C-alpha cells in the first residue's frame, strides 16, 4: 500500500470531508537529472505504464518519462475507453487477455478507481460474411478460454433493447459476437493511476519537455544514427539528457520520433475521430460495435453517448476533426437506434493513430541498440496499455523480447510474417 504514498479509501474521504483538509498531490513536478537509466518518450498510458512496471516489477527507478505537453494529452485522453480481448489471432487474444486481466485488478493495484465497467461488448453482424468472421473469432476465443460467443437477434435485443433488430432494415442485425467481460474504463483515471504510482516509486514525470532529437553513436546513418549504432540520450526543449536506453512510447508522432534515431517505421498516421452527446438518462447498457457501419457506441455513467468510428481515410496530422465524420456517424447510429434522432451531439474531437499494414503494433528492440519502440498501435492502444507497459518493462529489464510480444517485432516487415489481425479490424472497437 505504501507504494502509493497516500492511500485513498472511503475512510480518507470521510476524514477529508470532516476536516476539510487538503488532499496531497497525485504526482510531482521534479527537477530533471542530467542522466537516467531509461528515458521514455511519451507521457501517455503506454509510457507511464512502462515506467511503473520498470519500477514495480524490476526495481528500475532511475527513469524519466518526458512529454511535450501534459500527462495523457494524446491518444490516452482521446480514446473511448473500450477494453476487450476477443481478438482474432491467438497472439492477439493472449496479449489483450493479459491486458484485460491487469485492468480487472487495476483499481486495487494502483489504489485509484479507474471505473472499470464490465458491461458486455457486442459486435454486430449485418451480413452472413460478417457473421462468419464473428464465428471465427468466437471459436478462437473459446479455445483460449475467452468468454465470447455468437448470439442471435433476440438475445441482442434482450441485452440492448434500444437496438432495432427488425429484419427489414438496410443493415439487419443478423447476430452479434458477445463478449461479457468487455466494457469501458475511465481512460484519464488509468493515466493518473499509473502516473501517481510511478511518481511515488521514484520515476520522474517531466511534463512540457519536448524531445527535439535522439542522440546516437556508431550507426550507419548521419550523426551516428541508424542500424548498427547505439543510443546515447535525448535532446529536449529543456536541455540534453543522457541515457543508454530510450523508449519511443508515442502515438501520432511515432514516425517522427523514430526518424530521430534513424529507424523508419511501417506506419502512416491517420486521425481517429470521436464524439459525445449531451447527457440523457441512461438507456444503453452495453458497448455496441458495428463494423459494417463503422461505428461504436456506449453510454457513460454521466449519461452521454460516446461514439467512435474507423480511422479517417486520408492520412494527416491534423486533429481538427471533420463535419462529414459527424454526419456519417449520426446516420449510422440512427440505422441502429432510429429512436434517438433528437439527442444532440455536443462535442467532437480527434486523436492520431499510427496505422501499421497488419493492424498490429511494433514493439521491442530495433536495429539501434538501446532504442526500443512501443508504437504502431492503430486504434488498439488503450486496450493494450497495461500489458504493453508490462512487456516493454520486461524487455528493457531483461534485454530479451517478452514472449507475449514476440509476434510484434519490427523484423516482421522485412521477413514478411505479418500478423493476421487485419481481417477483424475494419472497426475493431
Amino acid at each position, binding site marked *: 500500500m505504501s507504494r502509493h504514498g497516500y492511500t485513498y479509501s472511503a475512510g480518507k474521504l470521510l476524514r477529508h470531508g470532516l476536516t476539510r483538509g487538503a488532499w496531497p498531490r497525485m504526482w510531482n513536478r521534479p527537477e530533471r537529472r542530467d542522466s537516467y537509466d531509461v528515458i521514455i518518450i511519451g507521457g501517455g498510458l503506454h509510457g507511464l505504464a512502462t515506467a511503473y512496471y520498470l519500477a514495480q516489477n524490476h526495481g528500475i527507478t532511475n527513469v524519466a518519462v518526458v512529454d511535450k505537453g501534459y500527462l495523457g494529452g494524446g491518444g490516452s485522453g482521446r480514446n473511448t475507453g473500450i477494453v476487450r480481448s476477443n481478438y482474432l489471432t491467438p497472439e492477439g487474444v493472449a496479449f489483450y487477455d493479459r491486458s484485460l486481466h491487469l485492468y480487472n485488478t487495476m483499481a486495487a493495484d494502483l489504489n485509484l478507481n479507474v471505473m472499470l465497467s464490465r458491461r458486455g461488448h457486442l459486435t454486430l453482424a449485418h451480413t452472413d460474411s460478417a457473421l462468419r468472421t464473428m464465428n471465427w473469432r468466437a471459436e478462437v476465443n473459446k479455445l483460449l478460454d475467452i468468454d465470447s460467443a455468437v448470439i442471435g437477434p433476440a438475445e441482442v435485443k434482450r441485452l440492448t433493447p434500444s437496438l432495432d433488430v427488425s429484419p427489414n432494415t438496410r443493415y439487419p442485425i443478423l447476430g452479434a459476437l458477445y463478449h461479457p467481460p468487455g466494457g469501458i474504463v475511465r481512460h484519464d483515471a488509468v493515466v493518473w493511476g499509473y502516473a501517481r504510482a510511478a511518481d511515488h516509486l521514484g520515476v520522474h514525470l517531466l511534463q512540457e519537455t519536448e524531445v527535439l532529437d535522439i542522440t546516437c553513436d556508431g550507426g550507419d546513418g548521419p550523426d551516428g544514427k541508424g542500424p548498427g549504432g547505439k543510443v546515447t540520450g535525448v535532446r529536449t526543449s529543456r536541455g540534453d539528457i543522457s541515457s543508454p536506453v530510450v523508449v519511443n512510447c508515442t502515438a501520432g508522432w511515432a514516425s517522427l520520433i523514430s526518424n530521430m534515431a534513424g529507424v*523508419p517505421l511501417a506506419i*502512416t498516421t491517420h486521425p481517429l475521430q470521436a464524439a459525445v452527446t449531451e447527457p440523457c438518462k441512461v438507456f444503453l447498457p452495453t458497448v455496441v460495435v458495428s463494423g459494417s457501419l463503422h461505428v461504436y457506441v456506449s453510454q457513460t455513467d454521466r449519461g452521454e453517448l460516446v461514439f467512435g468510428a474507423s480511422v479517417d481515410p486520408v*492520412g*494527416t496530422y*491534423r486533429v481538427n476533426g471533420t463535419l*462529414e465524420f459527424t454526419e456519417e456517424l449520426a446516420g449510422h447510429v440512427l440505422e441502429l437506434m432510429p429512436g434517438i434522432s433528437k439527442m444532440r451531439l455536443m462535442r467532437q474531437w480527434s486523436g492520431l493513430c499510427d496505422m501499421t*499494414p497488419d493492424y498490429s503494433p511494433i514493439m521491442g528492440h530495433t536495429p539501434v541498440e538501446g532504442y526500443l519502440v512501443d508504437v504502431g498501435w492503430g486504434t488498439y492502444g488503450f486496450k493494450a496499455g497495461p500489458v504493453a507497459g508490462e512487456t516493454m518493462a520486461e524487455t528493457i529489464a531483461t534485454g530479451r523480447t517478452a514472449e507475449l510480444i514476440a509476434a510484434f517485432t519490427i523484423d516482421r516487415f*522485412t521477413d*514478411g510474417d505479418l500478423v493476421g489481425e487485419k481481417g477483424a479490424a475494419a472497426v475493431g472497437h
Partner: protein
Amino acid sequence: MIVVPCPNCGPRNSSDLRNAGEVAPRPDPETASLTEWRSYLYLRENPAGWVTETWYCRSGCRRYFTIERNTATNEIRESENS
C-alpha cells in the same frame, strides 16, 4: 471537407475523390531484393509536412493524379510531376 483540385474537373470536395496515399516508387520486380520490395510495400515517409500523394477522381473523370498536401495544415499545392 477539404477541396482537392482535379486537373480535369477543377476544385472538388474531397468526398468526390479517393485518397490513394503517399507516392511510393515501385522497384523493378525482376531485380528488386525482397528487402527493397518490402520497403516499397510497408515503409512510408509519413511526414508531418508536405507529402506527394495520389488522388483518384472517383465520382468525376476517374483520373489518378498527384498533388502535394501538407499533412500538418491540409494546404494543397500542385505537384511537379502531376
